């Protein structure tokens, strides 16, 4: 009997059962109905009270569960991000995972000296170009707040810099209504108008409410702006266990989800059907250093839980993180922590996964870390694809040929190997498997050094498809306040 094609199991992580999902969801609703939240944007407060929220006192509101249900019902279950040339790039649905860099780092590791120094605007350009040249990095974020740009315009400048240096989708930060509208104008320049941008958005706004349960005016300004313009947005509050949220992960998740639901409700009231990416950032506050950890197992666990809640209940694509570390240099700790979050975020099918390339709990960005992550993502994808089982892969004929062949028959010589090895094996580019002597001869490099060389090579050789002069001129006019 001939073996037939059988379905491939693609390994998938689950960390919550249905009872846990429902209990966390119920707790989130209870927080909103009983504890309430502080809404500091007058317009949003009015929308919420008109919709049925109750004023406890001043700007403190409680929110009934039915508003959450309605918002979950009207938010799209699928979000598609396009690249800057209008091609579909990130279809956020089902099990699709997309990795990208992070934002707002104060420092970066200098490519030449290896030293940690303040970020400048050129670094933002370099990171964007690197992202553009890496196969497994799907979207760009700024990777730093440059010190050589006026701070009140920082997010507009880094956005323009990214637009000039990559054509991939961009996840951007803004401070408030003023700068987000300038960023929006730049984005419209890139694609040729508001309607084009609405139909084929290449950008996603990242914004944070303040845990516990505080919604500042400027954050709501941005949320409402995005809802009205149809710009996809995520609003993950920093409900870090022990910091903005209770130290126990279930409570931190419930609080973060509650906060996200407030954001979602306001968002859907302001722009019904506009795209909203679900999910809080639930890491931990380190109990010695009080930093928010970027290498801890807890964050990987809570976002896996969030993916389960998406699958069981919410249905909205989720926001996540991976490929970052608390280490100060790109050492073994950086490798371990990066891989831990990359593989688990993929196994739990998180959708938009940011912060790739961060060291020092998000305070320092590293081009080398991004290059390493590109390879780790490829490795994880290989693993997550599973094992295809069919006539070709079972290779009974090849086995018969080699085992039944004459002396000197080896699989390496067989056509089956030649035809299949590129797909059948994971072929690393940076992880070294060379024999000792050749490794030594080639300079006895470690992974950091190889990633450094590769980053330099990409920055030197990779050509980013340039934008037409007209677009660049238009952007410069906006930057100059024209």
């Amino acid at each position, binding site marked *: 009997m001939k073996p037939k094609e059988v379905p491939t199991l693609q390994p998938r992580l689950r960390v919550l059962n249905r009872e846990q999902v429902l209990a966390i969801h119920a707790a989130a609703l209870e927080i909103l109905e009983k504890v309430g939240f502080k809404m500091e944007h007058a317009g949003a407060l009015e929308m919420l009270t008109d919709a049925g929220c109750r004023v406890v006192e001043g700007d403190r509101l409680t929110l009934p569960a039915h508003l959450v249900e309605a918002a979950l019902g009207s938010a799209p279950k699928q979000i598609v991000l396009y690249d800057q040339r209008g091609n579909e790039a990130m279809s956020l649905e089902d099990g699709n995972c997309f990795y990208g860099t992070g934002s*707002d780092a*104060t420092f970066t590791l200098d490519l030449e000296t290896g030293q940690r120094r*303040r970020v400048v605007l050129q670094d933002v350009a370099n990171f964007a170009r690197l992202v553009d040249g890496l196969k497994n990095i799907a979207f760009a974020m700024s990777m730093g*707040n440059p010190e050589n740009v006026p*701070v*009140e315009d*920082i997010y507009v400048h880094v956005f323009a810099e990214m637009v000039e240096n990559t054509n991939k989708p961009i996840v951007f930060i803004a*401070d408030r209504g003023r700068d987000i509208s300038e960023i929006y104008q730049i984005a419209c320049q890139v694609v040729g108008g508001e309607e084009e941008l609405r139909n084929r958005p290449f950008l996603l706004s990242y914004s944070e409410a*303040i845990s516990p349960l*505080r919604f*500042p005016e400027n954050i709501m300004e941005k949320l409402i702006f995005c809802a009205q313009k149809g710009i996809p947005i995520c609003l993950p509050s920093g409900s870090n266990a*022990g*910091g*903005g949220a209770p*130290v126990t992960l279930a409570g931190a998740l419930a609080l973060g989800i509650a906060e996200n639901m407030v954001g979602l409700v306001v968002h859907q009231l302001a722009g019904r059907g506009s795209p909203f990416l679900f999910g809080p950032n639930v890491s931990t*506050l380190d*109990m*010695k*250093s*009080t930093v928010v950890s970027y290498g801890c197992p807890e964050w990987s666990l809570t976002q896996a839980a969030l993916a389960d809640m998406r699958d069981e209940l919410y249905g909205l694509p989720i926001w996540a993180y991976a490929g970052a570390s608390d280490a100060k240099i790109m050492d073994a700790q950086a490798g371990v922590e990066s891989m831990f979050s990359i593989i688990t975020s993929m196994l739990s099918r998180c959708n938009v996964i940011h912060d790739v390339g961060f060291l020092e709990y998000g*305070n320092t960005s590293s081009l080398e870390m991004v290059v390493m992550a590109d390879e780790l993502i490829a490795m994880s994808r290989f693993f997550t694809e599973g094992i295809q089982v069919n006539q070709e892969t079972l290779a009974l004929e090849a086995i018969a040929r080699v085992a039944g062949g004459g002396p000197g028959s080896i699989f390496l010589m067989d056509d089956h190997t030649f035809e299949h090895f590129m797909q059948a094996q994971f072929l690393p580019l940076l992880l070294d498997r060379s024999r000792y002597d050749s490794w030594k001869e080639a300079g006895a490099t470690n992974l950091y050094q190889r990633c450094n060389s590769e980053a330099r090579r990409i920055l030197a050789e990779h050509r980013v498809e340039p934008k037409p002069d007209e677009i660049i001129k238009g952007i410069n006019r906006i930057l100059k306040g024209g």
Partner: protein
Amino acid sequence: MSDLKPLIEAVIKGDIKLAAEEARRALDSGNSAQDILDKGLIAAMDEVGVRFSKGLLFVPQMLRSAKTMQECMKLLESLFQEGDITTKGKVVIGTVKGDLHDIGKNLVSMMMEGAGFSMTDLGVDVSPERFVQKVQEIEPDIVAMSALLSTTMPSMRMTTEALKQAGVRGKVKIMIGGAPVTDKYAKEIGADCYAPDAGSAVTKAKELLGVS
């Protein structure tokens, strides 16, 4: 006069009930309130600080000790005349204008209080004018400012300028901190020091005032 060791141990352990009992016992057996504060409570917090910096204690344990100390202080407070308590120094602290984040600032405030500073916490989104007004009102030794966002850091410069304008800059030391803040930035805006975390905020504040 009784031995203050059991009180010190109770504060280090963060056993509020036991510490309060020990504080009362110390008072009953003739210790002065100032001695209980200096040689009992603050000595205990100094030891907590040492253990924390050696990695033997975690932040929640340290904060519990600070809370224990505060509870004991409630027993002592009525025994001091107003303004009679000698502290390491008076500090006005706040998160600067435009910034609503308070976890880091609260932590610094708790730690400094535990170390024997008298803290006046102005909360979050504190305008330069409000800092100036409070400085004029209570004449602190230190103004401590916090910012989490790059975009709100300029408020630190504005506050420093406002203190100069009001003619009180020379009377206070300024310390700043928060995720995007650097030593270089502190120098740029003319602050007296930058503290990277709550533990070092205590050390730096002591250095600024020349107290131990």
